[in-house]
């Protein structure tokens, strides 16, 4: 009886999963299909998923009509890469010091991290904007990168990681006369690779996809990141959904590649964030 019940439930579970997977995929397929349709087919509108006259013209057109796309791609790459690398270094340094090194102020630093985690960060938007304005960093790479170079959530994550990490190797290295400044890059960082990889994927995706902060800081089209560029492109070509969808697919491609390659770390990272409490 119970075996029968379980089998039945398994079948229902699979049917549900398949239906939900289809619901997940349909919007992407629909957008992808539109990106290969000529405008005429888009407007005439029977809901055909396979384009009758598939064409690559939309992809060519977006680069001709908006020459800045390549520039936006470059901006996004520079910004997301710098933010990711700087965060990896600064967050793990701070997390390491908070978990391993005894120094006056350690506990208050950790307390401040907890305060930052408790405060909704929308509060900081306007003051940060004014600070960047005063520094003359609006509309510059520095204006986007510098305020995002360290992240309280990931400092917290690295601290927890190092707290659960065996000390023996570091102690052995210390006995050999190495200082913390040498132990950290030579011994600690290579061992922290899984945590760093998870952090890197989350950071890169986060800054690649970020919209609000770049929207406040960058206003010259030359400086736009891809999400901002795509939004302004939508404004200009609002009825050309074939172009907009082609541009959207282009923007999504790098992130899908990263996801395909590194999804293991992404899921590890998400799981860690989930176990934080």
């Amino acid at each position, binding site marked *: 009886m119970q075996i029968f019940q379980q089998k039945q439930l398994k079948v229902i*579970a*699979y049917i549900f*999963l398949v239906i939900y997977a289809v619901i997940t995929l349909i919007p992407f397929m629909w957008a992808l299909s539109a990106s290969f349709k000529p405008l005429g087919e888009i407007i005439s509108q029977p809901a055909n998923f396979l384009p009758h006259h598939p064409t690559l013209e939309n992809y060519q057109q977006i680069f001709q009509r908006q020459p800045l796309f390549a520039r936006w791609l470059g901006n996004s790459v520079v910004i997301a890469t710098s933010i990711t690398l700087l965060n990896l270094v600064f967050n793990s340094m701070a997390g390491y010091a908070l978990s391993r090194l005894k120094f006056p102020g350690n506990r208050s630093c950790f307390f401040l991290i907890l305060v930052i985690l408790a405060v909704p960060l929308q509060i900081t938007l*306007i003051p940060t904007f004014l600070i960047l304005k005063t520094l003359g960093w609006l509309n510059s790479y520095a204006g986007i990168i510098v305020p995002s170079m360290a992240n309280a959530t990931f400092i917290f994550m690295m601290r927890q990681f190092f707290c659960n990490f065996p000390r023996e190797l570091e102690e052995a290295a210390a006995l050999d006369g190495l200082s913390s400044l040498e132990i950290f890059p030579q011994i600690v960082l290579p061992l922290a690779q899984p945590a760093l990889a998870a952090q890197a994927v989350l950071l890169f995706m986060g800054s690649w996809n970020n919209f609000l902060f770049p929207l406040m800081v960058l206003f010259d089209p030359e400086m736009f990141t891809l999400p901002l560029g795509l939004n302004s492109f939508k404004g200009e070509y609002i009825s050309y959904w074939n172009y907009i969808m082609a541009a959207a697919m282009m923007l999504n491609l790098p992130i899908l590649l990263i996801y395909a390659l590194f999804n293991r770390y992404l899921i590890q990272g998400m799981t860690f*964030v989930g176990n934080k409490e």
Partner: protein
Amino acid sequence: MPTNFLFLEKPKARLKIRQNFYAYIFVLPAALVLGSFVLLPIVDAIFLSLHKVQLFGGIRYDFIGLHNFSYLIQDQQVGIAFRNTAQYVVMVVPTQTILALILAVTLNSAIWGQKLGLMTLFLPTVTSSTVLTLIFMWIYHPQGLLNHLLATIGLPTYNWLGDPGVALKGIMMMNIWSTAPLYMIIYLAALQSIPQMLYEAAELDGANIWEKFWHITIPHLRPVTFFVLAMGIIGTFQLFDQSYIFSGGTGGPNNATLTLVLLIYQAVFQNLQMGYGAAIACSLGLIIMVITYLHRLIFEDEKV
């Protein structure tokens, strides 16, 4: 004796100083960044919210006490944005949490295809809000896919982007769809960490599948549920990207997609009211902190 003592103590003290120095080097970069771009702005936001900020001819701050706050309570736009945001939180948080739980439980029970399922379901979560919003604007187009499907099965169609009655619901559907998989992963990890022994023991006692679910699975998911709800509340209160892109920054049609964060953005960039924007931001922050605090109290209370 005392000299001997000093002799022993001295290098130790010097070592201590050197260790402290290294520790500060480790902390310094992060401390500078978080200090200048998070902690200072938090304090600055409170300062700004009590002032009228003049931007032209050099920044000038005129102290006006709580005037910004008394004004925002009467401000109709704030009322609309607050109602929209609250409605959005109340609809989206429970729905996405329940959906995430159902997805995690079903995915966890799957023997084959778990990895593929996970990869597929997670797609919307890795895709940027900009891309998702544009895809859904296309689907919500008056002659778009959604209306086509609705018409095919004989349901009424809507002008999803232009009708104030349904515009926010369009954003809700989209965000439930795109965030549920994120929380699904967190639930899935929690499900997989429940000791299998407990289920086996319950089976020996003759528990059926529902009894096992209610008495083993659900209690074990409590801490994760707390976290998922807290993250959901914080995330939904901060709705901005989708509203901004949907409405081209206006919060339209007829303020139907105006949210509190969008209003903060408008205060700064359209009306140049930095102080007023900061007051709205502080109020939003306070609301979120109070609600997450109450949420924690309720969860801790039930534990007893």
